């Protein structure tokens, strides 16, 4: 019997600290940011962009969206990181102790928020490298 099983046998049952929706929070922030950028850019380019315009209001808006989204994502990731680090360090195959489940949702939420940060930065990258509505 592996070590985690022994720990499991000794530990007290305790409900999970987080709810399932917590892990969806990071990707949801990405999704909202993504949609906001897409819709704003699409409407801007269809309705307001004219040839030679600097497009600066669009870039300002995207900047504001991105700052808000990234701050939100960092908050989620820090909270998730704390919640999973509070548990025992993950064992070999990240077998969470069955009665110490907080790490699981926290850990997954942490990873998802990191992925969301990368994906959000990818979106920002587009506005840095493509600067017109052509």
């Amino acid at each position, binding site marked *: 019997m592996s070590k985690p099983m022994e720990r499991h046998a000794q530990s007290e049952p305790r409900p999970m600290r987080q709810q399932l929706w917590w892990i969806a929070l990071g990707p949801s922030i*990405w999704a909202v940011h993504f949609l906001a950028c*897409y819709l704003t850019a699409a409407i801007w380019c269809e309705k307001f962009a004219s040839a030679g315009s600097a497009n600066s209001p669009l870039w300002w808006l995207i900047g504001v969206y991105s700052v808000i989204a990234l701050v939100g994502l960092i908050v989620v990731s820090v909270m998730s990181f704390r919640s999973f680090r509070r548990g025992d360090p993950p064992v070999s195959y990240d077998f969470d102790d069955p009665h110490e489940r907080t790490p699981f949702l926290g850990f*997954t939420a942490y990873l998802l928020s990191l992925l969301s940060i990368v994906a959000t930065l990818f979106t920002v990258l587009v506005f840095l490298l493509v600067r017109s509505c052509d």
Partner: protein
Amino acid sequence: MDERGERLLKAWETPKGWRYWSAVNNSEVGLWYTLTAFAFFLFGGVLALVIRIQLAVPENDWLTPEQYNQVFTMHGSVMMFLFAVPILEAISILLLPQMMGARDLPFPRLSAYGFWCFLIGGVFVCGSLFFGVGPRGGWFMYPPMTTEYQTDVGPDIWLLGLSFIEVASIAAAVELIVGALKCRPPGMRLNLIPLYAWYILVVAVMILFAFPPLIAGDLLMELERALDWPFFDADRGGDPLLWQHLFWIFGHPEVYIVFLPSIALVAMIVPTFARTPMAGYGWIVLAAVGTGFLSFGLWVHHMFTTGLPGITIGIFSAASEAVAIPTGVQIFCFIATLLIGRVTKSVCLLFVLAGLATFIIGGLTGVMVAIAPFDYQAHDTYFIVGHLHYVLVGGTIFPIIAGLYYYYPFVTGKQLSERLGMITFWLMLVGFNVAFFPMHLTGLIGMPRRVYTYPSGMGFEIPNLISTAGAFVLGAGFVVLLWDLVRPKGGQPLVKRNIWNAGTLEWIAEVPDRPWGIRSIPIISTRYPLWEQDNLMSDVDDGKFYLPDAEEGLRETLVTSTVDAEPMQCLRVPGPTFLTFFAALFTGGVFIFSTYHWWVAAGVSGALSFITILIWLWTGTALIPEKDNKDVGLGLSLPIYVSGPSAVGWWAMFITMLGDMTAFVSLVFGYFFYWTVHEQFPPAEFDGREIIGPGTAWPLVSVGLGVVAWIAVIAARSSNRSDRSGWFYSMIGGSVLLAIGSAAALVWGPITAGMDPTHHAYSAAVCVLVLWTVVHLSVGVVMLVYCAARRLAGRMDARHDADIVNVTLCWHFLLLTVAVTGSVIALFPKVS
């Protein structure tokens, strides 16, 4: 077997003789579903060979263009709608309850209904090919070709036949979400559920948000075809690109909807053969959830060449690259598991390896085409055909075949031949690569997709001939596999229990399996209970855990809490019935008769289906039990009847309405989409006639009445709970009248203003929102009347109030629908 076991067996007995087809249990329905999906797969495969014969040589005239167009349209549609999505639902219906020690899914009759819908719809759509009237607009059905230039029934068969099947898919999604979240064994907290269930949960949620936009698109296109409402007609303010958006908002998540469940099978197989738990459980969940989200941000990469601004293209290009990250993570988790463990080799694992090798090529070419400039060249060429087959065969077919080898003993008690398996493996691997690898080149040297023939002299001849040869080798592989599946195995002894020495709960099944699913529902405390929980199998067999008996002779399973899987309810699930078959038959009638514009027959069929479903609900749902609580074993007593957010029915309603809302949002999206793409929308006048709006007053009156109706519904719920009958009936009556009033006001605006939906896309867009809302209000009225009848008949009372609670939940969404429709058409863009 003791007396308790006998009783349990009796309760779960599979019906015999012709009544066999009334079975609703997941093991029967799952099996039928799987076999049917596999049959459609073989049909789609034959169509693929027909395509390859036609393209073997240049300037071939074996098929006419019209025949070829039907064949390739059906190949794509069959593989996507009749194989890839249904097979995942089929396998999940078959396996998921078993993996989670549940006796059945929470809504067995819904699964059965979904299956019959799938069978009827699938046969109808495929059959059209044999009468030469098959759809021929491609599986993507781009208007205006499919609206103005194909006036035969082909597109209608596609739109209505497949919408019908999509409804079945959504039904299965509801079932699987509730199953994965609520029907786990006690103790199987979220971090212990089999990875398969995680994937299926993600996929089912994706179906819920991906399919409704397509259904909305189907609705718009069918309205244009049948009633000339010009949604996609550019001459009257419509836009063909709206269809492309709606189609690909469905179509791209679809790729992951078919890919993830197959990877889920890999995630079950790999640990078994590596003899070690999956490395990086949390990482895999990250990958599944992350892919699920990101896959909704990719749809425009199918539209890179439609002339969109560079910014838009860039945004979707970026998301398409980002989705490769979670995909990479899961592949490395599999490899890490194989590295950590001591691997037992088998045909099963070879197919996993083949799947990985193939899929990674598809993934890498996917990363390439996600770079927009490369897509400008590769889009709509054979490069894409190569890419997508590498993704789908590598990511879906090979893993499913691995799963077939893995789970065949689970279903039949016999094993597939390793020797024939090796032959199959090599035929398929070689055949597939010979067929599809050259296509990348064929595409780069300029061969477009969907051509029924090609001229000689451009270098297309040799790669196409090689592809055809490879396709037949691949086909031969399937023939060998098919033989292995069906050859008589009478001489072979039954396999031993848990033949692969796996760790997950489904392998606790006896050989041959018994219909009860599991003798008693165990307490789970690890991810691989058969490896890590001592004596689990014998304790389960001895009936030492929950629900080892069926004292009342009824089918029961446990409902547990979402996160921590604490037992919450003893759920009684319904048994065999033909009602679901007839309900599906009549529902099918509505779609099929409408295809041919036999409106009377469609109406009759619709009425019959309505009545059948009402009987089904009346006799089979929210039954008041003979006692409140039941001893489920181990000294635990659980309620039998539950209403509100802890009831599975409430969840099903909530999930269904989320899907319904998604379809509605798609329609609203269309409305605003027209506004963005037009300089002025709506124009002041069009075609010499003034463009008329519904006015401000009547839609807002409708919203007002809707709000009051909703308040009355809530009041009805609480007066039921406080057992004030008089109040209850008057509140129901009031809300019914108000709802009718709200619908009438909504219709009255456009009618008095004299709106003509065929005039302009604006008029059509307003009318479709009104139509959608009025239909929903009508359903809401029927539900309220149903609740009143339930109480009158004594089937609902103050404590047993699931009906009115679920109807109230539905009404929250109805209110949202009315409010959005009313305010959008009244206020934006304002047309007086």
